[in-house]
């Protein structure tokens, strides 16, 4: 789960990382109330997840209330790189002398937590590493030791002690690491961490993504979860206890396993089939299969269903009974093709064939069938 900037800053503030005074609004006419209180120049920032907000015009500066109001009007309710802007964050503009990058994230390949620091912040980390690789330090952290003061010694080379209070900087880095641990972050970063003209540090922008597997112990972050942002089919599946992925094509795919599902999509693509969705039904009972079908057929994009079942713990006959029972609830002439293999496959195939469905052993055969049936015109 990704947080919006204003939410990240709420967390930062709570954990002692300094952030600018900010106001979040979802109506442009609320600007006036804020600017009655704020007299300085302000920055109006779109609250979206897409990257490169500044370059795309999602961040605007304003020196008068009417400028701020018109900036908010231009942003709220409009799209930024395809994402709807629902809220903007208004902050006072900060007089800064230097921008740093600090991030803590999982290095997936090395399977370690890495602390990344650069004295050339303000652009995204990929850009920094391309343009100024010599100004980037990566510190790999032991999961049990965590961040220790000595880790920061290798950052001294980037610091001008006359301009910058290094101890203060290290305190902020340590707090950021504590946020990474406490909130089960996949990534947390401050970019830029600004050094102000008065010598203080302040987090001007922040990013935080939580590990979804940690949902059970992150109640505080989960209150930021924005249901409306989720795809309705994925959400519906989740409520029914399934994992589903909404895609852009017209064939709904149900398989019992994530890897099997992925390889089904791969083969479907080879035969020019376009998946509308992929749902993992696990070792489902008849009733659960009915439910899974109901979820995917509620998607208007779905013009047919392909099943790919590798019976193991899941029994092919049980799943076949579920499919057979669902037939009455399907739209007329809605194509259903099943590939069954493994436990109780013969009985499963029989149950489906009696109902007049295409049910086969071979996945390629099943894929050819569903692609041609959907192309002939599903519902």
């Amino acid at each position, binding site marked *: 789960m990704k947080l919006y900037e204003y939410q990240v800053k709420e967390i930062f503030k709570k954990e002692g990382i300094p952030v600018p005074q900010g106001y979040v609004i979802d109506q442009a006419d609320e600007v006036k109330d804020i600017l009655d209180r704020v007299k300085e120049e302000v920055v109006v920032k779109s609250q979206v997840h897409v990257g490169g907000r500044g370059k795309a015009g999602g961040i605007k500066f304003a020196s008068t209330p009417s400028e701020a109001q018109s900036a908010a009007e231009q942003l709220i309710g409009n799209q930024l790189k395809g994402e709807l802007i629902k809220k903007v964050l208004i902050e006072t503009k900060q007089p800064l002398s230097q921008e740093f990058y600090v991030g803590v994230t999982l290095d997936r390949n090395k*399977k370690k937590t890495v602390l990344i620091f650069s004295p050339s912040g303000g652009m995204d980390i990929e850009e920094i590493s391309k343009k100024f690789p010599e100004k980037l330090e990566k510190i790999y952290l032991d999961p049990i030791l965590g961040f220790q003061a000595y880790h920061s010694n290798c950052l001294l080379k980037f610091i001008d002690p006359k301009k910058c209070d290094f101890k203060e900087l290290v305190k902020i880095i340590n707090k950021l690491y504590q946020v990474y*641990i406490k909130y089960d972050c996949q990534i947390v970063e401050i970019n830029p961490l600004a050094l102000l003209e008065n010598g203080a540090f302040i987090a001007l922008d922040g990013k935080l993504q939580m590990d979804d597997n*940690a949902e059970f112990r992150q109640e505080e972050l989960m209150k930021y979860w924005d249901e409306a942002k989720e795809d309705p089919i994925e959400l519906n599946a989740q409520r029914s206890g399934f994992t589903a992925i909404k*895609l852009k094509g017209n064939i709904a795919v149900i398989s019992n396993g994530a890897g099997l599902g992925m390889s089904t999509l791969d083969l479907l693509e080879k035969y020019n089939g376009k998946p509308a969705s992929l749902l993992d039904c696990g070792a489902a009972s008849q009733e659960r299969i009915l439910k899974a079908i109901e979820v995917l057929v509620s998607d208007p994009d779905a013009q047919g269903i392909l099943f790919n079942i*590798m019976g193991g713990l899941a029994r092919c006959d049980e799943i076949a009974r579920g499919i057979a029972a669902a037939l009455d609830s399907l739209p007329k002439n809605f194509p259903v093709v099943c590939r069954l293999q493994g436990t109780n496959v013969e009985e499963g195939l029989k149950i489906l064939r009696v109902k007049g469905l295409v049910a086969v052993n071979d996945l390629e055969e099943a894929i050819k069938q569903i692609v041609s049936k959907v192309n002939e015109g599903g519902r």
Partner: protein
Amino acid sequence: MSILVDKNTRLIVQGMTGKEGTFHSKIMIDYGTNIVAGVTPGKQGQEVHGVPIFNSVSDALKKTNANASITFTPEKFTKAALLEAIDAGLKLVVTVADGVAFHDMLICRDYAKKHQCVLIGPNTSGLISPGKCKVGFMPHALYKEGSVGVMSRSGTLSYETANNLTRAGVGQSTVIGVGGDQIPGATFVDLLPFYEEDPDTKVIVIIGEIGGNDEEEAVRYAKKYMTKPVVAFIAGSAAPVGKTMGHAGAIISESGAGNAQDKQRILKELGTLVAEKITDIPDLVKQVIR
């Protein structure tokens, strides 16, 4: 022969008194796995399927000569269960939990490595040496004893592959689910040396998928240090960027890293046979088996 688990495995089941633990323990025992103890805090003195239950792994080790453990504990207690088993000195620990926070796994993986413990999982169905021992919940009827080592990030694709190999008359030495998470315990590269040393494993099949670079690392290692041929398959060619494809670890990053096409290309460049379709694996195995 086989690797990691066989007739000499003496297994502890952590969480044996729970529903899943009880159910799958029975199936493992019937298959021939030697379960010597169960562990559930507060339930010492009870028995499940005639197996004594202990309060802790260390209590179990005082009374039995167990040498491996599998945990059926819920994901929120998995870290504690794994650390307990490693701390008690076991050198093979398996977890079938699904949904373990990766911060927990960073600690467990590190702790296991520092104690020379092979940690399998999470998000796996376990491992099986067909005809000898199963530690997990895979559908064992699909497997047959033989000389192909299989490792897979996906459970169902490992079942499918075992089934296809068996039907093609090719048996398996040991089939291991390394699991579908971002931070597994043992990765492909950690397990390859065991297969290399096993005289009965002739070929190794790696079933990978999008996300990370464990497949590339494994094949690089194999090219440098292994005498046995490797056959690979990568799932997820059709997966969109930035979407988690069911497994927490199966995601192509926004920058495109970890996509299937790059993985397939790198594996081929390193001289590995890469199956286009999962069903092509038995033919490729037959080509290289000696």
